[in-house]
């Protein structure tokens, strides 16, 4: 077991009060720190909180925003909220899915709440307005 992982996980657990009800907060903090939640990280969390690994794994896999695989270099998110859908987000998504530049990964997002701007794209988690669309398409290697 990587003692570095264990130490940083333990520090994180301490910062959040060390109780099991903070599990989601702890996973958030660790994902922010490490980019994703690796198997050793989850195991260290389970040990640190004295929880069964199944409980930690169950929670981590339940929520869409916890990444159990290493993240891509860049994420291009397409909001699929109703307003974006009505304004052609699914067509946009299909077009983008045809080919992204290496290092980019396409993700589908549930409504990000910027409905008045739709269709909305997110580049590495940041909302990009329609104006940035052209630039984005270029960056993402879309013809």
């Amino acid at each position, binding site marked *: 077991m990587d003692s570095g992982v264990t130490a940083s996980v333990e520090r994180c657990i301490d910062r959040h009060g060390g109780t099991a009800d903070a599990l989601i907060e702890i996973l958030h903090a660790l994902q922010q720190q490490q980019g994703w939640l690796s198997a050793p990280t989850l195991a260290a969390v389970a040990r640190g909180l004295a929880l069964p690994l199944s409980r930690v794994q169950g929670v981590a896999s*339940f*929520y869409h*925003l*916890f990444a159990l695989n290493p993240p891509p270099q860049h994420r291009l998110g397409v909001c699929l909220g109703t307003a974006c859908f*009505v304004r052609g987000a699914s067509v946009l998504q299909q077009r983008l899915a045809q080919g992204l530049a290496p290092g980019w990964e396409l993700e589908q997002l549930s409504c*990000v709440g*910027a409905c008045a701007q739709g269709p909305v794209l997110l580049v590495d988690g940041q909302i990009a307005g329609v104006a940035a669309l052209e630039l984005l398409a270029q960056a993402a290697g879309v013809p």
Partner: protein
Amino acid sequence: MARIRCCTASGCRAAGGPALQQALQQARADQGLSTAALTIKPVGCLRLCGRGPLVAVDGADGGAPRLYGAVPPAGAPALVELALAADATGAAAALAAQAIDGEHPFFALQQPVVLEGLGLVDPESLDDALAHGAYSQLQRCRAEGRPEQVRARIRRSGLRGRGGAGYPTGLKWDTVALQPPGPRVVVCNADEGDPGAFMDRAVLEGDPHRVLEGLAIAAFAVGAELGYVYLRAEYPLAIARLRRALQQLRQHGLLQHGLLQGLDLQLRVGAGAYVCGEETALLASIAGGRGTPRQRPPYPAQQGLFGSPTLINNVETLAAVPAILRRGADWYAALGMGRSRGTKVFSLSGALPHTGLVEVPMGTSLRTVVETMGGASGVKAVQTGGPAGGCIPAELLDVPIAYETLAELGSMLGSGGMVVLPEGLPMPQLARYFMGFCAAESCGKCLPCRAGTVQLAQVLDRFCDGRASQADLVQLEQLAAMVKATSLCGLGQGAPNPVLSTLRFFRHEYEAACTSGASGEPAR
């Protein structure tokens, strides 16, 4: 004093707000003006999100504020000029294309109660919030020292849950307060997951202290010493603003002694699960578990977080509380119609020119909101209530907006998402869209929802592709009825609604999608 207010909510930020604000500061410096001579103030949502970035110019002459939208950074010097002298004709001409008519029905028909501080208060400043009256009602409640009186006022106001269910707020507060002695918890449900809804995001981003005051008043009214805000992770700016607001309360010592003494307030951030908007799932998530709902009773008001009686109110409900107490329950109850009192905030989006945030008295017709305020034309239907709601066809838009009236039409008031659907949108496709959402968000605990939503999506696929049969139509209706009747929580019970609602008003589109002659076995 001359002042320019810049919207710093998510929408305007994405549209280039920060660059404009920077350009304004630069333009002010270039003119050799002090920050006192011209205030550039960051504020919350200025409503017409589709025209962002929005700025409001309060002239030195004290006239009505003038609103500008989609201003490029190059327009900053002209804005500064206008703020200093309202009669700067050159600047006014330069900004003519960006000027927004503040007298347009979109603004004129609004009645801000929940949103009264949005666009005026600096969302990152406690001092500014206090100057606008934040926490004054909490102070009054505490000074009067009579929780039962606060509950009576909320009861009399007729306020009902704005998250969608419409449960009378005062009654809920009473239920929690009157449980056997012991600790109580209050929770603000800020897990605004309905696609097409952004009211709560705007309130949290634009006036976070109002929500915290509402939560603190609720805590006082039911005798709770612990409060949580459960906020979805998809709203990073709202999270940052609320974190900062809580930090300010701690720094000023308001949580330790003073105003909020004896109340522990915590922020919990979700991790992307729509079902956590359901109250029992939300409590499971706050406790660090998988967000799966459980059977009720016991209701959270009896047995909720950590086994304690728990009051759960939505952001908008809590944000209405300080205004109700300040202006009086009777004033609030005088707004609205029937059993739906007060105002409701809607996020208006979709196929219409004026998209953004509106707050109108209950009883306002859907047509007024969508056509008069939103400027929509060629409307096919209006979708309300999110994935558990329905579509109201154009010919029924004169319906007054209220919990009961929209339910009668097979839709629901819901949390306040209002999406205008354009003429060309095939309804089976819309139903398929929502079903895909529900299938993806089903927590998997109960079979009808877990498997039923997937099956419904498959049947809907056949309608979307024009390869359905009459038997598919029968199966669609049977499945929808079964999932609605037998699912454990609101997600599953509501999932068939977009299907049932579009079948009710647009059945001919489903029938047209059935391949002629195919009437026997459904196509596989």
